[in-house]
Protein backbone atom coordinates (compact mmCIF):
# COMPACT_ATOMS: atom_id res chain seq x y z
CA UNK A 1 0.00 0.00 0.00
CA UNK A 2 1.26 3.48 -0.85
CA UNK A 3 2.40 5.57 2.10
CA UNK A 4 0.02 8.40 1.15
CA UNK A 5 -2.93 6.00 1.40
CA UNK A 6 -1.69 4.77 4.79
CA UNK A 7 -1.30 8.35 6.02
CA UNK A 8 -4.78 9.30 4.76
CA UNK A 9 -6.11 6.37 6.81
CA UNK A 10 -3.98 7.59 9.72
CA UNK A 11 -5.43 11.12 9.61
CA UNK A 12 -8.96 9.81 8.95
CA UNK A 13 -8.88 7.42 11.91
CA UNK A 14 -7.60 10.24 14.14
CA UNK A 15 -10.47 12.52 13.17
CA UNK A 16 -13.02 9.71 13.46
CA UNK A 17 -11.69 8.69 16.87
CA UNK A 18 -11.81 12.27 18.19
CA UNK A 19 -15.48 12.59 17.17
CA UNK A 20 -16.53 9.19 18.52
CA UNK A 21 -14.56 9.48 21.77
CA UNK A 22 -16.15 12.91 22.29
CA UNK A 23 -19.61 11.32 21.90
CA UNK A 24 -18.54 8.51 24.25
CA UNK A 25 -17.44 11.06 26.89
CA UNK A 26 -20.68 13.01 26.48
CA UNK A 27 -22.65 9.80 27.08
CA UNK A 28 -20.59 9.10 30.19
CA UNK A 29 -21.39 12.58 31.50
CA UNK A 30 -25.09 11.73 31.67
CA UNK A 31 -24.22 9.75 34.83
CA UNK A 32 -21.77 10.57 37.57
CA UNK A 33 -18.37 8.91 37.36
CA UNK A 34 -18.80 6.12 39.92
CA UNK A 35 -22.25 5.24 38.63
CA UNK A 36 -20.94 5.09 35.08
CA UNK A 37 -18.41 2.42 36.03
CA UNK A 38 -20.87 0.17 37.83
CA UNK A 39 -21.22 -3.32 36.38
CA UNK A 40 -24.86 -2.86 35.37
CA UNK A 41 -24.14 0.42 33.60
CA UNK A 42 -21.24 -1.04 31.65
CA UNK A 43 -23.24 -4.09 30.57
CA UNK A 44 -26.18 -1.86 29.63
CA UNK A 45 -23.89 0.00 27.22
CA UNK A 46 -23.01 -3.22 25.44
CA UNK A 47 -26.67 -4.25 25.24
CA UNK A 48 -27.56 -0.98 23.53
CA UNK A 49 -26.68 -1.89 19.92
CA UNK A 50 -25.84 1.61 18.52
CA UNK A 51 -23.53 2.23 21.49
CA UNK A 52 -21.88 -1.18 21.10
CA UNK A 53 -21.29 -0.42 17.40
CA UNK A 54 -19.76 2.91 18.36
CA UNK A 55 -17.44 1.19 20.87
CA UNK A 56 -16.43 -1.30 18.18
CA UNK A 57 -15.68 1.58 15.80
CA UNK A 58 -13.61 3.37 18.44
CA UNK A 59 -11.69 0.14 18.99
CA UNK A 60 -10.93 -0.23 15.27
CA UNK A 61 -10.06 3.45 14.73
CA UNK A 62 -7.76 3.67 17.74
CA UNK A 63 -6.08 0.33 16.99
CA UNK A 64 -5.34 1.29 13.39
CA UNK A 65 -4.22 4.82 14.30
CA UNK A 66 -2.16 3.76 17.31
CA UNK A 67 -0.33 0.89 15.68
CA UNK A 68 0.35 2.86 12.52
CA UNK A 69 1.81 5.59 14.73
CA UNK A 70 3.97 2.99 16.44
CA UNK A 71 5.03 1.64 13.01
CA UNK A 72 6.13 5.13 11.94
CA UNK A 73 8.13 5.64 15.14
CA UNK A 74 9.82 2.25 14.79
CA UNK A 75 10.66 2.87 11.12
CA UNK A 76 12.33 6.13 12.08
CA UNK A 77 14.32 4.54 14.88
CA UNK A 78 16.03 1.89 12.78
CA UNK A 79 16.28 0.97 9.12
CA UNK A 80 16.82 -2.26 7.22
CA UNK A 81 14.75 -4.42 4.87
CA UNK A 82 14.16 -7.27 7.32
CA UNK A 83 13.50 -4.97 10.25
CA UNK A 84 11.02 -2.85 8.27
CA UNK A 85 9.13 -5.93 7.05
CA UNK A 86 8.93 -7.22 10.62
CA UNK A 87 7.63 -3.85 11.87
CA UNK A 88 5.02 -3.58 9.10
CA UNK A 89 3.66 -7.12 9.46
CA UNK A 90 4.03 -7.02 13.24
CA UNK A 91 1.84 -3.91 13.43
CA UNK A 92 -0.79 -5.41 11.12
CA UNK A 93 -0.85 -8.54 13.30
CA UNK A 94 -1.10 -6.42 16.46
CA UNK A 95 -4.08 -4.51 15.02
CA UNK A 96 -5.79 -7.78 14.10
CA UNK A 97 -5.18 -9.31 17.55
CA UNK A 98 -6.33 -6.22 19.44
CA UNK A 99 -9.47 -5.76 17.31
CA UNK A 100 -10.29 -9.48 17.60
CA UNK A 101 -9.84 -9.48 21.38
CA UNK A 102 -11.80 -6.25 21.85
CA UNK A 103 -14.58 -7.40 19.52
CA UNK A 104 -14.79 -10.65 21.45
CA UNK A 105 -15.34 -8.66 24.66
CA UNK A 106 -18.00 -6.46 23.04
CA UNK A 107 -19.81 -9.45 21.49
CA UNK A 108 -19.68 -11.55 24.67
CA UNK A 109 -20.98 -8.69 26.80
CA UNK A 110 -23.58 -7.78 24.19
CA UNK A 111 -24.97 -11.29 23.96
CA UNK A 112 -24.67 -11.86 27.68
CA UNK A 113 -22.16 -14.72 27.36
Amino acid at each position, binding site marked *: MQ*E*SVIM*KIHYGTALGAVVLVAIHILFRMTQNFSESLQYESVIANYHFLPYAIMLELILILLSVHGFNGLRVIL*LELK*QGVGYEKAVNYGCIAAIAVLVAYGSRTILMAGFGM
Partner: protein
Amino acid sequence: MAAITSKLSDESPSTIVSPTNSVTLRISKFNPKTDSAATFVEFKVPVQKWTTVLDVILSVKQHLDPSVAVRYSCRQASCGSCGMKINGRPALACYTKISELNSNVVTVEPMNNFPILRDLAVDFTQFFSTHKKLKPYIIRDDSEVAEDTKEFLQTPKEVEEYLQFSYCIKCGLCNSACPTMATDSSFIGPQALAQAYRYVADNRDAGKKDRLKIIDDSHGIWRCHFAGSCSQVCPKGVDPAMGIQLLRGYLVGFRK
Protein backbone atom coordinates in the same frame (compact mmCIF):
# COMPACT_ATOMS: atom_id res chain seq x y z
CA MET B 1 22.06 72.96 9.68
CA ALA B 2 24.58 74.98 11.61
CA ALA B 3 24.61 72.31 14.31
CA ILE B 4 25.33 69.60 11.77
CA THR B 5 28.13 71.63 10.23
CA SER B 6 29.78 72.18 13.57
CA LYS B 7 29.60 68.48 14.42
CA LEU B 8 31.15 67.51 11.12
CA SER B 9 33.90 70.07 11.58
CA ASP B 10 34.69 68.61 14.98
CA GLU B 11 35.63 65.25 13.45
CA SER B 12 39.33 64.84 12.92
CA PRO B 13 40.33 63.60 9.47
CA SER B 14 41.98 60.31 10.27
CA THR B 15 41.83 56.76 8.98
CA ILE B 16 39.34 54.70 10.99
CA VAL B 17 40.99 51.52 12.13
CA SER B 18 38.76 48.82 13.55
CA PRO B 19 40.01 47.58 16.89
CA THR B 20 41.49 44.11 16.72
CA ASN B 21 40.00 41.59 19.14
CA SER B 22 40.76 37.96 19.47
CA VAL B 23 38.61 34.89 19.82
CA THR B 24 39.26 31.31 20.75
CA LEU B 25 38.51 29.05 17.83
CA ARG B 26 37.73 25.45 18.76
CA ILE B 27 37.97 23.13 15.79
CA SER B 28 36.64 19.59 15.87
CA LYS B 29 39.38 17.26 14.66
CA PHE B 30 38.43 13.79 13.59
CA ASN B 31 39.78 11.32 11.09
CA PRO B 32 37.47 8.28 10.87
CA LYS B 33 40.37 6.15 9.62
CA THR B 34 42.56 6.73 12.66
CA ASP B 35 40.49 8.28 15.46
CA SER B 36 37.79 6.75 17.60
CA ALA B 37 36.27 10.07 18.65
CA ALA B 38 36.47 13.74 17.77
CA THR B 39 38.73 16.04 19.79
CA PHE B 40 38.70 19.82 19.95
CA VAL B 41 41.81 21.83 19.23
CA GLU B 42 41.88 25.46 20.39
CA PHE B 43 43.51 28.42 18.72
CA LYS B 44 43.64 32.08 19.73
CA VAL B 45 43.00 34.12 16.59
CA PRO B 46 42.87 37.90 15.98
CA VAL B 47 39.64 39.12 14.39
CA GLN B 48 38.25 42.34 12.95
CA LYS B 49 34.58 43.22 12.90
CA TRP B 50 34.24 41.96 9.33
CA THR B 51 36.10 38.68 9.87
CA THR B 52 34.07 35.61 8.97
CA VAL B 53 34.33 32.17 10.51
CA LEU B 54 35.86 30.90 7.28
CA ASP B 55 38.52 33.64 7.42
CA VAL B 56 39.46 32.51 10.91
CA ILE B 57 39.61 28.83 9.95
CA LEU B 58 41.75 29.63 6.91
CA SER B 59 43.98 31.81 9.04
CA VAL B 60 44.52 28.88 11.42
CA LYS B 61 45.14 26.59 8.47
CA GLN B 62 47.69 29.00 7.00
CA HIS B 63 49.59 29.96 10.13
CA LEU B 64 48.95 27.50 12.93
CA ASP B 65 47.73 24.08 11.78
CA PRO B 66 47.84 23.21 8.07
CA SER B 67 46.26 19.83 8.75
CA VAL B 68 42.77 21.29 9.36
CA ALA B 69 40.43 19.84 6.71
CA VAL B 70 37.78 22.27 5.49
CA ARG B 71 35.85 22.52 2.22
CA TYR B 72 35.28 25.98 0.75
CA SER B 73 35.22 27.73 -2.59
CA CYS B 74 33.39 30.95 -3.46
CA ARG B 75 33.51 32.74 -0.06
CA GLN B 76 30.26 34.54 -0.90
CA ALA B 77 27.47 32.09 0.03
CA SER B 78 26.98 30.97 -3.54
CA CYS B 79 28.65 27.58 -3.78
CA GLY B 80 27.38 25.97 -0.58
CA SER B 81 30.71 24.30 0.19
CA CYS B 82 31.56 25.62 3.66
CA GLY B 83 28.53 24.40 5.63
CA MET B 84 29.39 23.44 9.20
CA LYS B 85 28.11 23.68 12.75
CA ILE B 86 29.14 27.03 14.22
CA ASN B 87 28.52 27.28 17.96
CA GLY B 88 26.11 24.36 17.61
CA ARG B 89 24.06 25.82 14.74
CA PRO B 90 24.42 24.78 11.08
CA ALA B 91 25.62 27.75 9.02
CA LEU B 92 27.88 28.72 6.14
CA ALA B 93 31.31 29.66 7.49
CA CYS B 94 31.80 32.29 4.78
CA TYR B 95 28.46 33.90 5.58
CA THR B 96 28.83 34.03 9.37
CA LYS B 97 30.75 36.91 10.87
CA ILE B 98 32.52 36.36 14.17
CA SER B 99 31.01 39.62 15.44
CA GLU B 100 27.44 38.35 15.00
CA LEU B 101 28.09 35.30 17.18
CA ASN B 102 28.46 37.48 20.31
CA SER B 103 30.92 35.07 21.83
CA ASN B 104 34.65 35.00 22.48
CA VAL B 105 34.68 31.28 21.87
CA VAL B 106 33.77 29.97 18.43
CA THR B 107 33.30 26.23 18.11
CA VAL B 108 33.24 24.72 14.64
CA GLU B 109 32.17 21.14 14.01
CA PRO B 110 31.22 19.13 10.93
CA MET B 111 27.54 19.12 9.96
CA ASN B 112 25.29 16.57 11.62
CA ASN B 113 23.64 13.78 9.62
CA PHE B 114 26.54 13.48 7.15
CA PRO B 115 29.42 10.98 7.24
CA ILE B 116 32.62 12.78 8.25
CA LEU B 117 35.51 12.62 5.79
CA ARG B 118 37.91 14.50 8.04
CA ASP B 119 37.62 17.39 10.54
CA LEU B 120 35.05 19.80 9.05
CA ALA B 121 34.69 18.14 5.65
CA VAL B 122 31.70 15.84 5.25
CA ASP B 123 30.69 13.36 2.55
CA PHE B 124 27.96 14.61 0.17
CA THR B 125 27.69 11.39 -1.91
CA GLN B 126 24.35 10.28 -0.42
CA PHE B 127 23.05 13.86 -0.41
CA PHE B 128 23.68 14.38 -4.14
CA SER B 129 22.44 10.92 -5.06
CA THR B 130 19.11 11.60 -3.28
CA HIS B 131 18.93 14.99 -4.99
CA LYS B 132 19.46 13.34 -8.39
CA LYS B 133 16.92 10.62 -7.62
CA LEU B 134 14.17 13.25 -7.52
CA LYS B 135 14.92 14.32 -11.11
CA PRO B 136 15.86 17.96 -10.48
CA TYR B 137 15.20 19.16 -14.02
CA ILE B 138 12.27 20.06 -16.23
CA ILE B 139 10.65 16.95 -17.69
CA ARG B 140 8.56 17.30 -20.83
CA ASP B 141 8.37 15.79 -24.29
CA ASP B 142 9.19 18.88 -26.31
CA SER B 143 12.25 21.08 -25.93
CA GLU B 144 12.79 24.80 -26.18
CA VAL B 145 16.08 24.26 -27.98
CA ALA B 146 14.61 22.18 -30.81
CA GLU B 147 13.84 23.76 -34.16
CA ASP B 148 10.49 25.52 -34.64
CA THR B 149 9.97 25.93 -30.92
CA LYS B 150 9.89 28.97 -28.69
CA GLU B 151 11.09 29.40 -25.14
CA PHE B 152 8.56 28.35 -22.50
CA LEU B 153 7.12 31.59 -21.25
CA GLN B 154 5.78 31.98 -17.72
CA THR B 155 3.84 34.72 -16.01
CA PRO B 156 5.40 36.34 -12.90
CA LYS B 157 2.77 34.55 -10.80
CA GLU B 158 3.78 31.17 -12.23
CA VAL B 159 7.44 31.92 -11.50
CA GLU B 160 6.57 32.97 -7.95
CA GLU B 161 5.17 29.48 -7.27
CA TYR B 162 8.66 27.97 -7.19
CA LEU B 163 11.17 30.84 -7.33
CA GLN B 164 12.41 30.76 -3.73
CA PHE B 165 13.03 27.01 -3.99
CA SER B 166 15.29 27.54 -6.99
CA TYR B 167 17.67 29.55 -4.75
CA CYS B 168 18.89 26.30 -3.11
CA ILE B 169 22.71 26.06 -3.27
CA LYS B 170 22.83 22.46 -1.99
CA CYS B 171 24.89 23.35 1.06
CA GLY B 172 23.22 20.61 3.13
CA LEU B 173 22.51 22.83 6.15
CA CYS B 174 18.79 21.94 6.09
CA ASN B 175 19.57 18.22 6.15
CA SER B 176 22.04 18.81 8.96
CA ALA B 177 19.40 20.60 11.06
CA CYS B 178 16.64 18.06 10.34
CA PRO B 179 15.66 16.01 13.43
CA THR B 180 14.21 13.21 11.30
CA MET B 181 17.49 12.80 9.41
CA ALA B 182 19.23 12.34 12.77
CA THR B 183 17.46 9.03 13.33
CA ASP B 184 16.22 7.96 9.89
CA SER B 185 19.21 7.56 7.58
CA SER B 186 16.89 6.58 4.70
CA PHE B 187 14.80 9.75 4.93
CA ILE B 188 14.84 11.72 1.68
CA GLY B 189 15.52 14.94 3.57
CA PRO B 190 14.32 18.53 3.33
CA GLN B 191 16.72 19.56 0.56
CA ALA B 192 15.58 16.95 -1.95
CA LEU B 193 11.92 17.33 -0.95
CA ALA B 194 12.09 21.10 -1.44
CA GLN B 195 13.67 20.53 -4.83
CA ALA B 196 10.94 18.06 -5.72
CA TYR B 197 8.43 20.81 -4.94
CA ARG B 198 10.44 23.30 -6.99
CA TYR B 199 9.89 21.20 -10.13
CA VAL B 200 6.40 19.94 -9.30
CA ALA B 201 5.23 23.56 -8.87
CA ASP B 202 6.82 24.63 -12.17
CA ASN B 203 4.07 24.76 -14.79
CA ARG B 204 6.56 23.92 -17.55
CA ASP B 205 7.26 20.55 -15.95
CA ALA B 206 5.39 17.34 -16.72
CA GLY B 207 7.19 15.02 -14.30
CA LYS B 208 4.93 15.56 -11.30
CA LYS B 209 3.60 12.01 -11.28
CA ASP B 210 7.11 10.49 -11.29
CA ARG B 211 8.36 12.71 -8.48
CA LEU B 212 5.30 12.24 -6.30
CA LYS B 213 5.72 8.48 -6.67
CA ILE B 214 9.35 8.71 -5.49
CA ILE B 215 8.56 10.80 -2.42
CA ASP B 216 5.49 8.75 -1.47
CA ASP B 217 7.65 6.19 0.29
CA SER B 218 7.89 4.85 3.83
CA HIS B 219 11.01 7.06 4.25
CA GLY B 220 9.69 9.85 2.09
CA ILE B 221 7.70 13.00 2.63
CA TRP B 222 5.45 11.62 5.38
CA ARG B 223 8.33 11.28 7.80
CA CYS B 224 8.74 15.06 8.06
CA HIS B 225 7.69 16.20 11.56
CA PHE B 226 7.43 19.83 10.48
CA ALA B 227 9.98 20.95 13.07
CA GLY B 228 10.89 23.76 10.67
CA SER B 229 14.59 23.78 11.59
CA CYS B 230 15.48 23.31 7.90
CA SER B 231 13.87 26.65 7.05
CA GLN B 232 15.50 28.36 10.03
CA VAL B 233 19.05 27.53 8.96
CA CYS B 234 18.78 28.04 5.19
CA PRO B 235 21.25 30.80 4.23
CA LYS B 236 19.36 31.56 1.02
CA GLY B 237 15.93 32.11 2.53
CA VAL B 238 14.44 28.93 1.10
CA ASP B 239 11.61 27.48 3.19
CA PRO B 240 11.86 23.70 2.71
CA ALA B 241 9.33 23.06 5.49
CA MET B 242 6.71 24.99 3.54
CA GLY B 243 7.66 23.22 0.32
CA ILE B 244 7.17 19.87 2.05
CA GLN B 245 3.72 20.87 3.32
CA LEU B 246 2.71 22.14 -0.14
CA LEU B 247 3.99 18.91 -1.66
CA ARG B 248 1.87 16.92 0.80
CA GLY B 249 -1.11 18.85 -0.53
CA TYR B 250 -0.62 17.14 -3.91
CA LEU B 251 -0.50 13.70 -2.30
CA VAL B 252 -3.51 14.27 -0.06
CA GLY B 253 -5.49 15.77 -2.94
CA PHE B 254 -5.78 19.40 -1.82
CA ARG B 255 -3.64 20.56 -4.74
CA LYS B 256 -3.80 19.47 -8.35
